[in-house]
C-alpha cells in the first residue's frame, strides 16, 4: 500500500515530506490536488506551504480542491490522514479536524526551533517517542489554534491533544500544537517533523513521528 503527498498549487514542502517518507522506505508518491480518487493510498499527507497563496485565509481555498474529496473519504474509512502546517490549516478548514488556525498572536511569520511536549504518547502519531519533550522546527504565520470552549473540553476528554508547545510561540489556545480527530486517524500539527529526520541538518526529533506511524503495520504496509 502506498502513501500520497498531495501537491496543492502553492504547497512548498511537498519534496521535504516526500523525501522524509522515502527515507523511511515508504512507497510514497506525489499526487496532484486535482486528483479526486485517493482510494489506493493507505496514508495521505497534506504538506506545508502556501496553498493557493494562502490568500483569503490559510487553507480556505485548498479545502475545495478535488483531492479533498478523496481525503475526506480516507478519513471516514479510517485510513491515515496527516496535515503538517498548511496541511493542518487545510484539515481544520475542511472540518476534518476541529477548531481553526488564526494569525499568530504577535502578527508575523516565525521560523524557529521550539520545544514540544508529547501530551499524548499513546496515539498513532506519537507512540514511538521515548521522551516527553522534543525539539521541532516551526515555520508559520497562522499557527494560533482556536476552538470554542465546548470543542476544547471535548478535545481534552478524548485525549485528542497530541503535542503542546512548551513556550507558546503563537498564542495557541492551551498551547496546542497538534491534535487528532476523535477516531484517532486524522492528525494535524503546525511543527515540521519532516524537517527533522536527517542528522546532517542537526535535528532528528522528527524521526519518531514517522516511526510511530510505521509501527502500525495494521494500517500501513511497507514498500519492501
Amino acid at each position, binding site marked *: 500500500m502506498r502513501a500520497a503527498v498531495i501537491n496543492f498549487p502553492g504547497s512548498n514542502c511537498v519534496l521535504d515530506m516526500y523525501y522524509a517518507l522515502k527515507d523511511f522506505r515508504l512507497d510514497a508518491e506525489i499526487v496532484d490536488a486535482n486528483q479526486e480518487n485517493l482510494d489506493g493510498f493507505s496514508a495521505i499527507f497534506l504538506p506545508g506551504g502556501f496553498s493557493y497563496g494562502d490568500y*483569503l*485565509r490559510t487553507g480556505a*481555498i485548498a479545502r*475545495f480542491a478535488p483531492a479533498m474529496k478523496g481525503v475526506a473519504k480516507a478519513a471516514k474509512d479510517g485510513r491515515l490522514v496527516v496535515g503538517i502546517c498548511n496541511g493542518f490549516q487545510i484539515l*481544520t478548514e475542511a472540518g476534518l479536524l476541529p*477548531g481553526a488556525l488564526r494569525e499568530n498572536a*504577535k502578527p508575523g511569520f516565525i521560523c524557529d526551533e521550539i520545544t514540544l511536549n508529547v501530551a499524548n504518547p499513546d496515539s498513532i502519531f506519537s507512540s514511538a517517542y521515548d521522551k516527553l519533550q522534543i525539539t521541532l522546527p516551526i515555520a508559520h504565520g497562522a499557527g494560533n489554534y482556536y476552538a470554542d470552549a465546548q470543542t476544547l473540553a471535548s478535545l481534552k476528554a478524548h485525549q485528542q491533544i497530541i503535542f503542546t508547545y512548551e513556550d507558546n510561540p503563537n498564542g495557541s489556545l492551551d498551547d496546542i500544537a497538534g491534535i487528532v480527530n476523535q477516531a484517532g486517524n486524522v492528525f494535524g500539527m503546525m511543527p515540521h517533523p519532516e524537517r527533522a529526520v536527517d542528522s546532517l541538518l542537526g535535528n532528528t526529533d522528527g524521526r519518531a513521528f514517522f516511526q510511530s506511524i510505521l509501527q502500525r503495520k495494521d494500517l500501513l504496509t511497507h514498500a519492501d
Partner: protein
Amino acid sequence: MYLAKIYVTYKKSILDPQGEVVKSALHRLSYTNVEAVTCGKYFEIKLDTTDKAAAAKEVEAFSDELLININMESFTYDLSELAEAVD
C-alpha cells in the same frame, strides 16, 4: 449588475491581535481618542444578475461557504445596483 460590499470580522469572543497592534500604533502616533480597533476583511464583488433577491442569496451562500470561516468569523453586507457596464 449588482455590487456586494461584504465586511468580515472575527466573532466578538475572539481576540483580534491585529486590532490590538493597530490600536497601540495609533496611540503612539498620539491618536489617543482611539478606544477600540477591529481589523477585518472587505470584499467588493460584482455579480452579473438583475435579481436583487437572487444576488443576496448568492452572497450569503458564498460568504458562508468560502469567504468566512464560520468557526471564528462573521460577516455583514450591502447590495447596490450598478449601472450596466458599457464596454
